[in-house]
């Protein structure tokens, strides 16, 4: 590896390698970050982004390669060393303590104190300064962090990084938990940080975002850097996708077939309400149809799905599947009637992460294959293997531990679960959250295929573009009310956003 000129770089990583139990997660990654820039790291799941971050934040030790900080070679033996160097990390699962105040969170581990007695006033004053630097001087330092939104927690996490005098902040998919308004705010804060000379390493797979905020890009694929330090402005999107996936992607959304007028109504929701969350939700979904629910985070979209499914007990209204009414608040009844839910939080609500793939595929059906209650694991494996082939799940191994699969493949497991159960109504909550670009279009195609096979599908997504691209019809939701129901061809992204904003203001 040719040694580059480090003088212009704040951070320079060269030829970083890292293996786990013989599997090479990083096969020689280069990353150069300059002070005051937003450097995006782009790559599909499994490309090595998280491993790279963990090497940089001191959580993992690299097997080979060199790290230079301000031109000097350094080692980062642990996270404390990283902080001392000036590298702070904002993880996707924010590591803030809900029960503590903003100040207590910011100074956690490096409290301002004399002989163990805390300087509360000084700490609060400095916290206010830090928050002001981030453009959020209005936040009360004594507020409990648990009462903040995800966006607020990110601000706290960033303030903590600043309190450590960070020169470089790593942000791991910060926009994943934010709605569009909050994302804009985040970008403003990032801009203020870079103005102060702080470098940001921004991990994301949303290309539009990277275009908006990034200065330069490093693209990872299969543990190697495909391109280092490309200028965002000079790199067209198709080129980025090609670097990430090794192939070109043309049609992201599969084409829609018109739903025949005589297709039977599979799901009928009438006057559904959940006190304090949403009310008067009416819609029907026919066989072969995809209906999308569009709205901001907190508009009640996920709750609507969960109530249809019986995971929450409706306070009014009815849900019918193929004409027969469901008992309110009974998941069991909904499943037996043919509804399947792919929940919003795939990991915490959907999967047994430590179990093999096949047990997750058959979680709703294992009893069916059993004989007098004795499990038939061979049958379960073969059922799972059929789905693995049909849905192109990778790796194609029913015995692989589910935790080790990418987000897209974990999503396929959930779809497979309900396909084998024989569900005809699929409720998909954020089906592409944490799924990278290449795999997204695969999921879209899969959803469309399931619809074409005669299933009724309801999709919830915070990405309006996704709902528009997938759904035949659209329900626009704000503050627990359905604002409008429309064909998705007769409205565009701006139209939906307009409605949502007006609806929220009203």
């Amino acid at each position, binding site marked *: 590896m040719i040694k580059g000129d480090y003088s212009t770089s704040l951070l320079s990583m060269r030829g970083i390698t890292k293996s*786990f*139990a013989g599997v090479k997660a990083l096969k020689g990654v280069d990353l150069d970050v300059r002070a005051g820039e937003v450097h995006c790291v782009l790559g599909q799941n499994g490309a090595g982004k998280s491993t790279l971050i963990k090497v940089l934040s001191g959580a993992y030790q690299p097997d080979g390669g060199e790290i230079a900080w301000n031109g000097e070679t350094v080692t980062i033996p642990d996270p404390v060393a990283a902080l001392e160097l000036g590298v702070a990390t904002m993880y996707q699962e924010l590591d803030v303590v809900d029960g503590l105040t903003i100040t207590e969170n910011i100074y956690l581990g490096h409290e301002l104190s004399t002989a163990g007695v805390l300087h509360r006033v000084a700490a609060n004053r400095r916290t206010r300064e830090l928050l002001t630097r981030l453009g959020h001087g209005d936040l009360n330092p004594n507020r409990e962090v648990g009462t903040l939104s995800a966006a607020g927690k990110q601000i706290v996490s960033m303030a903590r990084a600043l309190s450590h005098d960070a020169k470089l902040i790593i942000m791991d998919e910060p926009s994943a938990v934010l709605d569009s308004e909050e994302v804009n705010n985040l970008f403003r804060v990032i801009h203020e940080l870079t103005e102060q000379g702080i470098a940001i390493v921004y991990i994301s797979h949303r290309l539009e975002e990277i275009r908006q905020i990034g200065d330069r890009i490093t693209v990872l694929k299969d543990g190697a850097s495909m391109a280092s330090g490309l200028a965002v402005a000079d790199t067209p999107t198709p080129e980025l996708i090609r670097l990430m996936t090794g192939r070109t992607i043309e049609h992201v959304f599969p084409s829609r077939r018109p739903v025949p007028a005589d297709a039977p109504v599979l799901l009928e929701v009438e006057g559904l309400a959940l006190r304090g969350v949403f009310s008067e939700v009416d819609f029907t979904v026919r066989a072969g149809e995809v209906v999308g629910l569009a709205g901001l985070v907190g508009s009640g979209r996920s709750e609507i799905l969960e109530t249809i*499914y019986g*995971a929450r007990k409706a306070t009014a209204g009815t849900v019918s599947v193929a004409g027969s009414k469901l008992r309110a608040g009974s*998941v*069991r009844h*909904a*499943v*037996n009637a043919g509804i399947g*839910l792919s*929940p919003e939080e795939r990991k*915490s*609500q*959907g*999967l*047994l*992460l*430590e*179990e093999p793939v096949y*047990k997750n595929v058959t*979680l*709703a059906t*294992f*009893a069916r294959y*059993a004989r007098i*209650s*004795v*499990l038939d694991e061979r049958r379960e494996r073969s059922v799972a293997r059929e789905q693995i082939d049909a849905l*192109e799940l*990778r790796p194609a*191994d029913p015995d692989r*531990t589910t935790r080790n699969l990418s987000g897209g493949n974990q999503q396929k497991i959930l779809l497979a*679960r309900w396909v084998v159960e024989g569900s005809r109504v699929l409720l998909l909550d954020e089906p592409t959250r944490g799924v990278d670009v290449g795999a997204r279009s695969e999921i879209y195609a899969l959803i469309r295929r399931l619809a074409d096979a005669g299933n009724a599908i309801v999709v919830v997504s915070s990405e309006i573009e996704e709902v528009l691209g997938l759904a035949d019809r659209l329900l626009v939701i704000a503050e627990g009310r359905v604002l409008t129901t429309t064909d998705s061809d007769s409205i565009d992204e701006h139209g939906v956003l307009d409605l949502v904003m007006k609806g929220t203001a009203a």
Partner: protein
Amino acid sequence: MSETTTTPAPSGPGESQPNVFRRFLAGSAGRNLGLVIALVLIVIVGAITGGERFLDLGNFVTIVRYGSILGVVAIGMTFVITAGGIDLSVGSLMGLTSVVASLSWVQTAATETTWVLMVVVAIAVGGLAGFINGIVIAYGKVVPFIATLAMLVAARGLAEIFANKSTQVVNVTGFLQFFRGDLLGIPWLIWIFVLAAVVGWFLLARTTYGRRTIAIGGNYEASRLAGLKVKRHTVSLYVLSGLAAGIAGVMILARTNAGTSTHGQLYELDAIAAVVVGGTLLVGGRGTIVGTVLGVLIFSALTNIFTMNNLNISTQQVIKGVIIVVAVLLQQRFAARSSRT
């Protein structure tokens, strides 16, 4: 994805040798390997310090018989812990069930010919108490630690009221002959333990009941959203644990030929220790009956060696405490290694 790859599918009957070996190590055998090694080491220590006396076949029977009562309780406990719960009431339930059983004799409800009734009553009381635990936990949404702690206190008190704080001697010859007798030279107490272990292993590893238990312990919410009857199943787990405590109550009654409210004290802690040392995760989602049985045997072999070397009870307790920590530390290392492959 591409037609050029020619790698054959890695599964099928023609698996290579090292792969089989690695699977063996990564599987339950590998996880239990540490325990087997520990048990072998303990036997070696026993042989060195106790010599012939320890290595005598009769002594091995003594060791297993000593562990059999704890073993039955620990097998019930394995199910509860695998599902992410805990049952602190089992020791008290042993006391309660032994008292109820002995009372049914004293009150002549059970006679010389119908002593089986005594056994049935004891087990039923255990199951009923477990049912109450389960209802409070699953439907009342009280955390298992608190719910079963309350049962621990209440059951002990109830046993004292029933027994009037006195020991009820049971001299039913049929009952005692049966439970103190043996089959093929092996005491019935051991057979009960073996039976419980085999049934428990089968139930946990091979049936839909076991799959539900592991699923609920691994991810309660995901299990609920997949349509499993999580509440009903939770109740059944505590009933199972209560039934096991009832059986253990009968066993201790037979061994001591007396029912008293102080029976089974601290058995809950020994059972939890054996389960955890055996490799069942305290957070749930992974459980092994084979591990639990090995855990029980380790503790019972240790007690045997201690007694043989005339160590006093206090010293024994200190050593046991150290061993629990060391065993769990080793277990974690083994688990980490086998899960990474």
